[in-house]
């Protein structure tokens, strides 16, 4: 008997008796011998909690985390400080262990959290409707593509090259399923989406145009102009956005975006080597019945008391099956809880203070480094530069305990010497100055590693 099961020998006897069988074996008689495993699984034997802890701690020790080095890597996930109260609240079994709230009367906590989360996302994005979360950023972009298909019945999707490479990849992968073609729009020499090219790319069969604010290089896009260009032929404008950047940037909803989606990790979620986090999905009112995923709504109980329920479920797979607006079932409720707690912790003024601090440190970093900028225009939390002999510089910097950023070569061959540098409130002036001393322009060629 394992430490997680409770059946004692006595229980076993009584229970088999009540069932009316002789042995556990008998319970599996419906499984044809020919498909039985007939041997033990080829796995190690079970271990004590202590031994498992030691094993996983040893594995963890072989990773170099943001606790072990000063990292300027971002590119979609960022090393923000996660306040302690998030650990405390997410650690409460009341939030951690329930299933999706199918019984609203005993799930008001989770349902109200969803309602509050939707409100916060709606505020951030400037769009009236938000769902209770989707998986994460790039698949949220793909989900937006599917909504555009359902809405317009068109077959083309146009995506800026400023959209996160993973978002473009996920969009293409999913579109191959729902039968749509994805066309890419290039960046201009300032590292912003080429507005003319976008205008030219959309045609009468284009269901949606995708941009990202700020874009992958950190460039602040002219979303208004892109929306105008992208919606020229009746396509939807989908803006992927960094929720923290929306502290200081105009909400896409106010600039003509029909949908605003994105990666929620910066909002109180850990890096976790890429997940779990959450994706957010906000839309204009007219899409409310085409949204993917869970949506909590306010209502009353039979006594007139305020309460919350999962609503508009006729969109969903468990009711609508093949006609559902999306197949998502389990989403990211716990991560979304972290998101709304984080936003409430920051508060109306705190979010702006955080955004402005990041903004200023980002520009300070770019100036201090003094390297050739790939996107010289305004940036919010991230920027791209060209670094002469990047590999050596990376080497030297990492040897000094600083991870200077994400090399662009894999995703942008055109920027083979490009480095994407991200700043958060955890990267202080002192960190930035150390970075500059290692990779900055003034560093003498071939300085000692």
């Amino acid at each position, binding site marked *: 008997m394992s430490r*997680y099961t*409770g059946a004692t020998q006595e229980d076993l006897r009584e*229970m088999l008796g009540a*069932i009316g069988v002789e042995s556990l074996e008998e*319970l*599996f008689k419906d*499984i*044809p011998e020919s*498909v039985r495993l007939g041997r*033990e*699984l*080829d796995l190690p034997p079970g271990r004590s909690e202590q031994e498992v802890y030691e094993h*996983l*701690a040893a*594995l963890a020790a072989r*990773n170099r985390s943001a606790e072990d080095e000063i990292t300027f890597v971002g590119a*979609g996930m960022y090393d923000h400080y996660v*306040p302690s*109260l998030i650990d405390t609240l997410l650690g409460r*079994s009341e*939030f951690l262990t329930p*299933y999706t709230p199918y019984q609203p*009367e*005993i799930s008001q906590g*989770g349902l109200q959290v969803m309602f509050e989360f*939707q409100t916060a996302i709606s505020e951030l994005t400037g769009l*009236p409707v938000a769902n209770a979360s989707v998986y*994460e950023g*790039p*698949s949220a972009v793909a989900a937006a593509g599917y909504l555009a298909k359902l809405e317009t019945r068109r077959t083309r999707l146009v995506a800026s090259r400023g959209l996160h490479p*993973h978002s473009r990849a*996920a969009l293409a992968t999913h579109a*191959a*399923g729902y039968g749509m073609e994805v066309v890419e729009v290039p960046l201009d020499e300032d590292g912003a989406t080429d507005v003319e090219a976008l205008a030219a790319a959309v045609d009468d069969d284009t269901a949606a145009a995708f941009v990202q604010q700020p874009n992958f290089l950190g460039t602040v896009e*002219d*979303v208004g102009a892109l929306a105008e260009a992208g919606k020229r032929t009746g396509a939807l404008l989908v803006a992927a956005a960094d929720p923290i950047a929306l502290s200081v940037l105009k909400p896409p909803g106010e600039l003509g975006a029909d949908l605003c989606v994105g990666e929620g990790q910066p909002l109180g979620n850990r*890096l976790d080597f890429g997940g779990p986090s*959450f994706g957010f999905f906000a839309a204009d*009112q007219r899409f409310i019945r085409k949204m993917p995923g869970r949506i909590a709504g306010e*209502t009353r*109980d*039979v*006594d007139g*008391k305020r*309460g919350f329920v999962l*609503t*508009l479920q006729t969109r969903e797979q468990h009711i*609508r099956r093949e006609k*559902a607006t999306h197949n*998502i079932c*389990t989403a990211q*409720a716990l991560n979304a809880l972290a998101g709304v*707690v984080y*936003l409430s*912790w920051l*508060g*109306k003024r705190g979010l702006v203070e955080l955004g*402005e601090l990041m903004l200023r440190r980002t520009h300070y970093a770019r100036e201090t480094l003094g390297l050739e900028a790939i996107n010289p225009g*305004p940036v919010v939390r991230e920027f791209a530069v060209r670094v002469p002999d990047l590999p050596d510089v990376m080497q030297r910097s990492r040897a000094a305990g600083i991870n200077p950023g994400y090399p662009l070569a894999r995703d942008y061959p055109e920027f083979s010497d490009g480095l994407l540098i991200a700043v958060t*409130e955890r990267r202080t002036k002192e960190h930035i100055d150390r970075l500059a001393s290692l990779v900055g322009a003034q560093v003498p060629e071939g300085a000692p590693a």
Partner: protein
Amino acid sequence: MTDDTVTVFERSRAGRRAFVAPETDVPEVPVEELLPGDAIRERPAELPEISEPELVRHYTTLSSKNFHLDEGFYPLGSCTMKHNPKLHERVAALPGHARLHPLQEPEYAQGALELMWNLQVALGEIAGLPHVSLQPSAGSHGELAGLLLTRAYHEDRGEQRTKVLTPDTAHGTNPATVTMAGYEVVKVGTADDGGVDLDDLREKAGDDVACLMLTNPNTLGLFDRNIEEIARIVHDAGATLYYDGANLNAVMGIARPGDMGFDIVHFNLHKTFTQPHGGGGPGAGPIACSDRIEPFLPVPQVVQRGDSFDFDFDRPKSIGKLRGFQGNFGVFVRSYAYICSLGRDGLKDVSEIAVLNANYLKALLAQPGIEEYLPIAFDRTCMHEFVVSGSGAKDQLGIKTLDIAKRMLDHDVHPPTVYFPLLVDEALMIEPTETETKERLDHFAEVIRSILEEAKEDPEVARTAPHTTPVRRLDEAGAAKRPVVRWRPEADNPGDPERAQKAPASGSGAM
């Protein structure tokens, strides 16, 4: 103030704060000099202003209105609500895991890659299919991956197939996935023994069929004895056989999907491998597949090179990426810890006790006083779960399955899954899981008995249940008719005691 339905936004008071910003150690350049005027946000997002103590109280109080697994029995059919070991939260929170950036070079993430590799190997062994991708974010995402792989596989062979078969007992995500993957759903009937109707299958398994999606044991909790014949039919038609792994908890170490003839499997790590549900996620839906499907798996794949590990992006036939980065690593950590804790013996023990508990509870419900009202659908030895029909209670007691479920809420147990699977009238789908004790099962049967007896006296009690919960039955129809999906100041006057009297219509999100 003490109205426990007040939102955090309504608790806001201008000037309060829980957050204090780190000092600005760089020049305080005006925002206007750093951003183009028309890009600058004009009015700040209306987030709550609240002190830390009140913020903690708000969410702590909300949490206490949730029923949860650490409180009591949670036999939600098809959801495998097993105990979530606390060790898993500890190891997932280790900074080496929790603060590891997803783009850290493999060289500096060897521990994480080895963990993913070990998990892949274990899942492959459990499924009997050698190739694993951990990338999909949940079960339904894994299903989508499975159909995208199927499409890629057929296209690679120059075949165009347009249909996917799903049994009428299938979970909703199956048909929904079929549509999203660009296929047409074709339903296959269920035979009298609860298994797939073989004649119907033979008839529909033409060369336009790309795949049959099946879960075995199926959503009735029954193992399909004809699985080999089914596999033969599907493969003869050139289609793939997809295994919806949501019910894997019944057969670990006993029988493997790969050995049954399945080509592709998804796992619900948040079910079988005990990732806490979090009130609706996160989860993870890794997939395993056979050699012929392997070339099409998503990128990147974790690969072993000598005694180190790396990501392989160079997979020309890959369907590409399903999401960002490598998947829900934090979930992998928990499920890997689970597999390490239980090991080969423990995993088999899990399935044996899960099946024992289900059959024992089924036997308890087959007693007079219960069975007349809740007859067992397809009464056979079940696997990890079973389905009863509320038809008897409806006809003889005048209470619906919904009423029985709602009345359970007053007894501090979570109701089973209701009204699913669809082909069972007034269905109650019961999955106790292996981590429940005999006492819990006995108690649950007693609760059902007492609800039925009470209904004989006075059905109204159940019809109007629940009576002891934070709220009582809610107006779901009204919520859907005039959806209020976010809080708005004009609708809800902060702290206004009368607010509870207001009609839900106010605050309608119309704009």
